[in-house]
């Protein structure tokens, strides 16, 4: 069984976000981590490796620095890391990103592709389903439990008020929720292996069956019209009244805003 896991190196937004003077994000000044949902996806793949001896290949797209997350994945137990990096791929939206990753994955054998549901920097949850569309395979998103039965996967798929147990024939793409599992730590032996491991680097030339017009900034249907630091909510009203008046005040406001 062969599993491909897509991971993304993201700024650690929990550690605070830093901006350049022009208002763009200062990525260089921020710590980076493996995106949490992706890490849960990797852990799910590693459990399939533990159980069934699956071969786990990790793919990332990004700057050369993104190699770090591949080494982290190998230190956790992944077999192989592929870095997709090329100047012409920069500025990609989710369409161009999914085209790029699909172009890379077409070079690989796979039964299962696992991505995180969404990355904490963009929060779009689009790239996984879009990769599956480009590859013509089924997608099961929001996976909270994954098991393999013969040539099929059985997945608990979360919705707002329910979950579905879904069964799909492989090959199939699954997007993982961070709640799926508790990812393992890197092992000392793993870290040693990761340090020595050869990372495969692919550029534009290695992407299979993708047109230039679908890549990078130029291949991105969506364009940024404006970006800005969030406007902090201003102070509202503050009143000091006796309890009865306070309640009357709240009731007025709730009625005014059609809450009650």
């Amino acid at each position, binding site marked *: 069984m062969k599993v491909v896991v897509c991971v993304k190196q993201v700024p650690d937004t929990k550690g605070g976000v830093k901006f350049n003077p022009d208002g763009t994000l200062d990525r260089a000044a921020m710590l980076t981590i493996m995106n949490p949902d992706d890490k849960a996806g990797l852990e799910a793949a590693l459990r399939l490796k533990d159980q069934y001896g699956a071969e786990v290949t990790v793919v990332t797209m990004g700057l050369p620095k993104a190699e770090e997350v591949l080494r982290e994945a190998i230190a956790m137990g992944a077999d192989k890391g592929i870095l997709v990096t090329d100047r012409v791929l920069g500025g990609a939206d989710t369409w161009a990103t999914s085209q790029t990753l699909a172009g890379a994955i077409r070079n690989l054998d796979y039964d299962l592709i696992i991505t995180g549901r969404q990355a904490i*920097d963009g929060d*779009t949850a*689009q790239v996984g389903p879009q990769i599956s569309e480009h590859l013509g395979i089924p997608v099961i998103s929001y996976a909270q439990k994954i098991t393999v039965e013969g040539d099929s996967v059985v997945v608990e798929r979360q919705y707002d008020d329910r979950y579905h147990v879904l069964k799909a*024939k492989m090959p199939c793409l699954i997007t993982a929720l961070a709640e799926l599992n508790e990812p393992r730590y890197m092992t000392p032996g793993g870290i040693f292996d990761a340090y020595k491991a050869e990372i495969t680097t692919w550029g534009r030339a290695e992407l299979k069956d993708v047109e230039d017009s679908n890549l990078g900034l130029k291949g991105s249907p969506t364009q940024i019209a404006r970006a800005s630091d969030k406007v902090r909510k201003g102070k509202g009203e503050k009143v000091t009244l006796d309890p009865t008046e306070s*309640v009357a*005040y709240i009731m007025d406001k709730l009625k005014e805003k059609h809450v009650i």
Partner: protein
Amino acid sequence: MNLEEYKGVFVFAQQVDNKVSSIALELIGEGKRLAEKLATEVTAVLVGSGVKDLADELAAYGADKVIVVDDPELKEYRTEPYAHALSSVINQFKPEILLVGATAIGRDLGPRVSARVHTGLTADCTSLEIGDFPINPIPGKEQKHNQLLMTRPAFGGNTIATIACPDFRPQMATVRPGVMQKLEKKEGAKAVVEEYNPGFTPDNKYVEIVEVVKNLTDTVDIMDAKILVSGGRGVGSPENFKILDDLAEAIGGTVSCSRAVVDAGWKSKDLQVGQTGKTVRPNVYFAIGISGAIQHLAGMEESDIIVAINKDETAPIFDVADYGIVGDLNKIVPMLTEQIKSAVANK
């Protein structure tokens, strides 16, 4: 792609168990507003099995037209048949704008459809406008008019970005639930109903539904709650959370809490709002006895309306509260509950 061919504002009218989801009505309301600016109409796309009767409800909330895709394959939501239904509607009717709810269904369906029809998709929008792109003219670049400008938070809510899709159609957005306004219901309003079935042939992409399990737990996820009644250390004791439970019940809300409350062992972690808990964006957030540490504010300041009750007038929660009340929560909250109860009863 001839962009001129694409006309009208379409919304995906999500239904679950043949009940129209609230987001569908919100999208019709917002779609109508956009359609008026473009001098066009709003069309609801209703996908399911045995759902045709729901068209009147969509009309009552403002849909000018309803396209119904009705097929037994569409009984429960599954990615492939729904993606086939919606992308076939796009190819057939060519809308210039398509709005989908940013729900667990819409965030799965939207990307699959946008990839199939080759257009852009902007996720989790909180504001939509019609305007020029680029917003300000740039020498040597064509400024296009009447574009959909889609605004969304990113980077964990630390930035906001406005996105356009100038060269592809439809301009697609998923829209966060609870943000857009429904129109007032007009009983008896009728829409033009058109049935359309592109044909459904199961293939490898049709996954099998083995089981549908409803209501995982009785507790509402605080991230889905429209109204949160949140308590902090100032509530005083686990027993005293009763007055918050009562308020929540009266107003149809859910109880959540600050980290101090979880650390004290009064409430479980899944109810915690804040940086190390959950990020919530309810319509109304009551902060009761919560001082408002920056980590707490990070998890709730996006709420539409924040009502804070705290006896300490210097508490930082008042910096983000729309309505701040300096006072004793033990006196105010029970009285508020009673008044809400009678207000609801008299409705």
